[in-house]
């Protein structure tokens, strides 16, 4: 297997390969060459960089740019590519939306927050902010005067058009307008207030009778600018936002950011804290999947299942409440370990949970999975191929249901996961049934992890001492962890102060919502609910 550094040197001759703080090689390339290089990286037979983890928009003051984090689904190696432009008035970069499908939405995000136009992207609209927003919030020179963007008392202006920037032969860039839907399409608004969108997400759905022709995913209703807020807060303060992204993976997200900061600051945490963190992660995974099963069945009309699955989730929330003092925004992991020690009866409670879990899973299968109506609703509905899953960066149980082994706990183990015994659940069908069953089986695997740990919680301190004002050295770090819904990535760039220069969150739910359009084409309206439910996205996570 070729070393990724050698590979990069071979594909990009003359490039200087740096190393970011987390061992991911980083190259800087010229924007003009980027599209061709991206194609080469993506199509490389030995080590295809076919998974675009995220695009981090950057404002380095003297230049604007983007950092592409790439990974290979084959060799699991990672690299990052930096491109930049010094033009601050009309910054333009070349789009790679034709190489990685998910780049389309990631580039829209960068455009929305940094104002960088991507030439060749078929859909250059704002993503989160409304179309009349003045300024690009994540730029360092952004003017946040409320008078510029007053709270509107009128309806938000909507447009049926999107922009495409095309580069002509002579190098000039032309802006053209394109309709999002055809002029005579029957467009139904599903959302933002709709029971099946699981939050304030809006699908503008063009239908032909009951058949779906196209979906325009319209997000941003819960955009709170978490990344912008983080830039004005100290590192320990930024942690609190992690509870409020995917609120069901609160522990996992905390864990991810903590690891990134601890790596950057060179903090070693105790074994006890690591075990506690992993146990909490797995407990939240079970709770999250339980809720998924319940709400998904409810989407399909089987209301009763919700009550059966909430029983287990309730038990887990009780365990967490005893230790963390909260049932929702736990705020438990902190830099250096965890906030408080475990509650005295934690072990006993977890054992009680593990005792009832198998019977419950059996019951779920009995009442729902085997039901002929449920099977007809799910089997073959919303099939996502492995290639598309990778191209759309659909990770987590949804990606694994398409046959893509993307579990970060296995591919890039963090904390103590490399010592634990558990299976990565992989299905090949890629349909809603596979996504459902993957989650069902993952609960069993999480229970397996808990079983291994529950009797082996070592003694020791639960939190090591860290300086009151934590300053990270200059540099950048990228950390991936496995949330309940997929890969959660966090990128930190520090300029040596106590506040992050840039903190980028790469959520798993943004790709999940993006792929809805792709896999619902030609399906029925009812299938949209099945597919959306089976992908299990969380809106605050994608909007941030």
């Amino acid at each position, binding site marked *: 297997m070729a070393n990724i550094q050698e590979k990069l040197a071979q594909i990009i001759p003359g490039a200087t390969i740096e190393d970011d703080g987390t061992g991911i090689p980083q190259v800087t390339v010229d924007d003009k060459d980027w599209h061709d290089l991206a194609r080469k990286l993506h199509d490389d037979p030995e080590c295809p960089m076919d998974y675009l983890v995220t695009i981090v928009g950057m404002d380095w003051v003297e230049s604007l740019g983007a950092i592409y984090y790439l990974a290979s689904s084959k060799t699991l190696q990672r690299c990052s590519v930096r491109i930049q432009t010094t033009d601050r008035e009309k910054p333009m970069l070349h789009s790679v939306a034709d190489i990685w499908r998910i780049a389309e939405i990631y580039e829209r995000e960068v455009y929305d927050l940094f104002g960088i136009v991507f030439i060749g992207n078929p859909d250059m609209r704002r993503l989160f902010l409304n179309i009349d927003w003045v300024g690009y919030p994540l730029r360092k020179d952004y003017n946040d005067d409320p008078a510029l963007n007053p709270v509107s008392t009128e309806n938000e202006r909507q447009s049926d058009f999107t922009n495409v920037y095309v580069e002509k032969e002579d190098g000039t860039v032309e802006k053209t307008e394109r309709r999002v839907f055809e002029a005579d399409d*029957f467009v*139904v*608004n599903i959302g933002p207030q*709709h*029971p*099946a969108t699981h939050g304030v997400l809006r699908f503008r759905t063009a239908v032909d009778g*009951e058949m779906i022709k196209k979906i325009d995913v319209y997000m941003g209703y819960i955009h709170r600018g978490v990344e912008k807020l983080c830039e004005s807060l100290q590192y320990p303060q930024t942690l609190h936002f992690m509870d409020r992204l995917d609120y069901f993976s609160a522990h996992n997200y905390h864990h991810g950011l903590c690891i990134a900061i601890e790596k950057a600051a060179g903090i070693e945490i105790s074994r006890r804290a690591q075990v506690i963190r992993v146990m909490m992660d797995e407990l939240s995974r079970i709770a999250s999947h339980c809720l998924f099963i319940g709400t998904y*069945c*409810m*989407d*399909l*009309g*089987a*209301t*009763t299942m919700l*009550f*059966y699955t909430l*029983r287990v989730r309730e038990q887990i929330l009780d365990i967490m409440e005893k230790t963390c003092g909260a049932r929702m925004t736990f705020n438990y992991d902190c830099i250096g370990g965890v906030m408080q020690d475990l509650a005295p009866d934690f072990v006993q409670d977890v054992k009680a949970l593990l005792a009832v879990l198998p019977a419950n899973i059996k019951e779920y299968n009995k*009442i*729902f999975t085997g*039901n002929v*109506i*449920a099977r*007809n*609703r799910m089997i073959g509905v919303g099939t996502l191929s492995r290639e598309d899953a990778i191209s759309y960066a659909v990770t987590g149980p949804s990606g694994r249901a398409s046959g893509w082994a993307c579990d970060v706990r296995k591919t890039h183990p963090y904390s103590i996961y490399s010592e634990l015994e558990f299976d990565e659940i992989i299905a090949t069908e890629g349909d809603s049934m596979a996504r459902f069953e993957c989650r069902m089986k993952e609960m069993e695997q999480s229970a397996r992890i808990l079983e291994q740990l529950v009797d082996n919680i070592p003694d020791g301190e639960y939190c090591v001492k860290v300086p009151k004002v934590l300053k990270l050295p200059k540099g950048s770090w990228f950390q991936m962890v496995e949330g309940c819904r997929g890969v959660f990535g966090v990128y930190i760039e520090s300029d040596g102060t106590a506040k992050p220069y840039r903190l980028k969150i790469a959520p798993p739910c943004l790709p999940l919502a993006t792929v809805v359009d792709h896999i619902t084409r030609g399906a*029925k*309206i*009812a*299938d*949209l*609910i099945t597919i959306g439910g089976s992908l299990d996205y969380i809106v605050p996570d994608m909007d941030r």
Partner: protein
Amino acid sequence: MYDFSTITGSIHEFLLSFMAPWLAVLTECLIIGMGLLLVYSVLALIYIYYERKFCAAIQCRLGPNRVGPWGLLQSVADMFKILIKELIHLNHIDKFLFALAPYLVIIASMLCFAVLPWGNGLQIIDFNIGIFFLLACSSIGVLGILLAGWSSNNKFTLIGALRSGAQMVSYELSIGLSVITMVCLAGTMSVGGIVMEQQDCWFIFKGHIPALIAFVIYMIAGTAETNRGPFDLPEAESELTAGYHTEYSGIHFGFFYLAEYLNLFIVAGVASLLFFGGWMPLHIPGWDGFNHIMDYIPSVVWFVGKAMVLSGVIMWFKWTFPRLRIDQLLSLEWKYLLPINLVNLVLMVCIIILGWHF
């Protein structure tokens, strides 16, 4: 068996003693109309409470238990709430049709009440095409739903209404055919006649295999006809928010709500009429003592009890199964239920001709 016609007869005599015959009939019509309305609303309240408790039991919950003893007054409170709620007036709708739709739905289900065999001699009208009249009336309901969806000028309601139209028209076939199957066995379309035919033995036992098939199909089609889960596509809440009645508020919504429960009762009532003898007590040929004891239970209790149990089965469907998709729903009807039904009809006719029934 107590015959209620002695009461109704004496009322008739009493009225005739001081009234002109036409006036007596008019007075009786008014009394019956009032009585029907009363039964209708009380039954709806009982049904709402019944369904809540039933689904609570399935879902490991308690259900309503705060208002009144065992929460008995909960549905009364809810009904009161719905009565005093504002009727929200919408612009850009067809106001006349919008207001008309809920009444069509409720009238359809009230008309069906007229021919149900409530008890021995306790039937409002018993004419020779009773069951046919019932089918005809229940089909009016779909008109109301289509109108509601169309006049609301809303995309969700329109999709809901069209789904409902497709669904009800399709499943009416199955209901009709399974009813015809049983009419063949009974040899009469008169509701009273069908009940009397089951004096010695209920049709479900008398007609054995074809009757059982017809019963299963009737229950499936009946569930679909009432737009209840797993066939609640017209109002699939997770897809269409509330389907055809999304835009309705206050008592107009209440009418749809009421009609849904009453239709449930009617479907179950007709099932008990066709397969379980209507108000006829359980009689087993040859067991005279047993039959005699059964006769002591009032006929009204028999009818309402059977209808309640059968409604329970339909509720059980709803709280257990996920919802079907529209194409699956239609293919179930046209590709499976309809052919089976036709074959079953032939089978029933053969059995009757050959005298293989009990």
